[in-house]
């Protein structure tokens, strides 16, 4: 009986059922097995026995284990039996109802007859040895981990297994997808290296390239300050402020010492490429200019417009230039002033308003628009 192992009672892919017979009791050698009466099933590969009431209780044994078998006729008060002699237990046998047995044979006792037909079929199978021609891929077992058992699972367990399988598949896919991304990141690093080397080459032979292009290349930040490298909060903003201080110097000088924060935002993010800054981080970093003693300042105009300006860019100079320009032309609108200075309209208007605030200019607000004049009220 120790040759039997627990089974789920399901047939494998290449296995076919040959015959089944009700009312069969198993004997371990000469002793009655501690199992009830059940159904004996003969397949092309196995001898299976299943309890009548409790279908979970099911055991199986490969036909290859059978050496020979014989009929035992029925007697008075005795059912007809088939005695089956078996090989030695294989070493890695799946667990079964008997761990070991002193007998090397079992008996099938047919309470409800059918032994003649069963014997005939068993003889056929043993001569044909169909299990050899079409072996099942996995050892026949009751283990739930078996691949074959899983594919054929039915009911709630089957559904659960399918869900589990799908989940694993998805997991695998996601892993693969991210693997691709990390590969891309590696490539990105290479690209940065490449652009840097190109930039260096261009530096070496300046003049071969147009001013615009060299300007664009010079804008790239090789090692952008990121949250990954500098963590969150103040420290990050401080480092960011320092980097901004370095990179904004030149563009600010070019633009007359002042840039709107929106323009700064665009410029910085264009330069950073992949490691984009949030507007909030930019503002927070700009607020640090003063405490870090950088030559830049964040300035908020009365209108709420925020600009970054060079510290050297003094207010007095700005006002004086606004007054000079207006006096020179007699009167100016913000648009005209912007054209004159090459500034944005927004910023030139801020300058005019500033000059008005200190009393150097006055306004003429008519249908033609807002126009600024020298403040003759004060001088007259």
């Amino acid at each position, binding site marked *: 009986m120790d040759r039997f192992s627990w089974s789920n009672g399901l047939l494998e892919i290449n296995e076919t059922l040959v015959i089944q017979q009700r009312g069969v009791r198993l004997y371990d050698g000469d002793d009655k097995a501690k199992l009830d009466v059940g159904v004996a099933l003969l397949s092309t590969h196995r001898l299976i026995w299943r309890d009548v009431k409790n279908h979970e209780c099911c055991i199986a044994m490969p036909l290859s284990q059978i050496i020979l078998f014989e009929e035992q006729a029925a007697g008075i008060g005795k059912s007809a039996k088939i005695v089956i002699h078996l090989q030695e237990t294989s070493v890695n046998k799946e667990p079964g109802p008997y761990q070991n047995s002193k007998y090397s044979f079992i008996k099938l006792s047919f309470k409800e007859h059918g032994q003649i037909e069963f014997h005939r079929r068993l003889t056929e199978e043993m001569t044909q040895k169909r299990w050899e021609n079409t072996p099942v891929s996995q050892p026949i077992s009751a283990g739930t981990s078996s691949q074959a058992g899983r594919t054929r699972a039915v009911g709630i367990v089957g559904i659960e297994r399918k869900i589990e399988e799908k989940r694993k598949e998805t997991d695998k896919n996601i892993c693969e997808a991210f693997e691709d991304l990390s590969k891309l990141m590696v490539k990105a690093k290479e690209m940065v290296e490449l652009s840097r080397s190109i930039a260096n080459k261009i530096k070496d032979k300046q003049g071969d390239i147009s001013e615009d292009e060299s300007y664009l290349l010079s804008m790239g930040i090789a090692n952008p300050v990121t949250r990954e490298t500098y963590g969150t909060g103040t420290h990050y903003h401080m480092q960011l402020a320092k980097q901004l201080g370095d990179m904004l110097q030149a563009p600010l000088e070019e633009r007359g010492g002042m840039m709107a924060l929106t323009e700064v935002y665009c410029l910085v993010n264009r330069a950073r490429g992949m490691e984009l800054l949030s507007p909030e981080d930019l503002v927070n970093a700009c607020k640090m200019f003063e405490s870090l003693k950088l030559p830049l300042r964040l300035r908020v105009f009365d209108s709420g417009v925020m600009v970054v300006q060079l510290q050297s860019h003094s207010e007095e100079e700005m006002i004086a230039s606004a007054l000079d320009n207006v006096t020179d032309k007699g009167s100016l609108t913000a648009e005209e002033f912007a054209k004159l200075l090459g500034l944005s309209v927004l910023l030139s208007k801020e300058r005019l308003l500033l000059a*008005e605030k200190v009393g150097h200019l006055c306004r003429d607000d008519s249908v033609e628009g807002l126009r600024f004049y020298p403040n003759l*009220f004060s001088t007259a």
Partner: protein
Amino acid sequence: MSFEWPWQYNFPPFFTLQPNADTRQKQLAAWCSLALSYCRHHKLYTLDVMEAQESPVFNNKKIERKLSMEAIQVVFEELRKKGNLEWLDKNKSRCLVMWRRPEEWGKLIYQWVSKNGMVNSVFTLYELANGDDTEGEEFHSLEEWMLLRSLQALQTDGKAEIITMDDGKGVKFF
């Protein structure tokens, strides 16, 4: 003699209320002075705000600028604060303009009276404003309400007394 406009009248920002407090103060001072001298030149004593906007004072057709209604109200309010203007109704649509305050008028009248040695004499109000003697004086043809105010100012100073007579009012100077 035609009215002589101040330089501000041709300066476009004059017609925009200036946001800068200092500038606005100077601008309003210029407006007050212009409004008063204009009224004085044309001997205007009452003004209608709606009409005022269309009058040449607040509407410079040459430079195509006119003072907005709100700005006119601000100017009038400024005049009222200085004592040169009084509203005639709650809606502030009509006002009395006193390009000379009552005390100033009173002073002028009293000067004329004492110059002509007529202290302690009695005059009717009609005589003072429309009489032959005052012809050529600045207070000649002064509106009666204004004249009365001037004399009341003098009375407060103890230089005159207003007397009620049969056919109107009279005044005695001291």
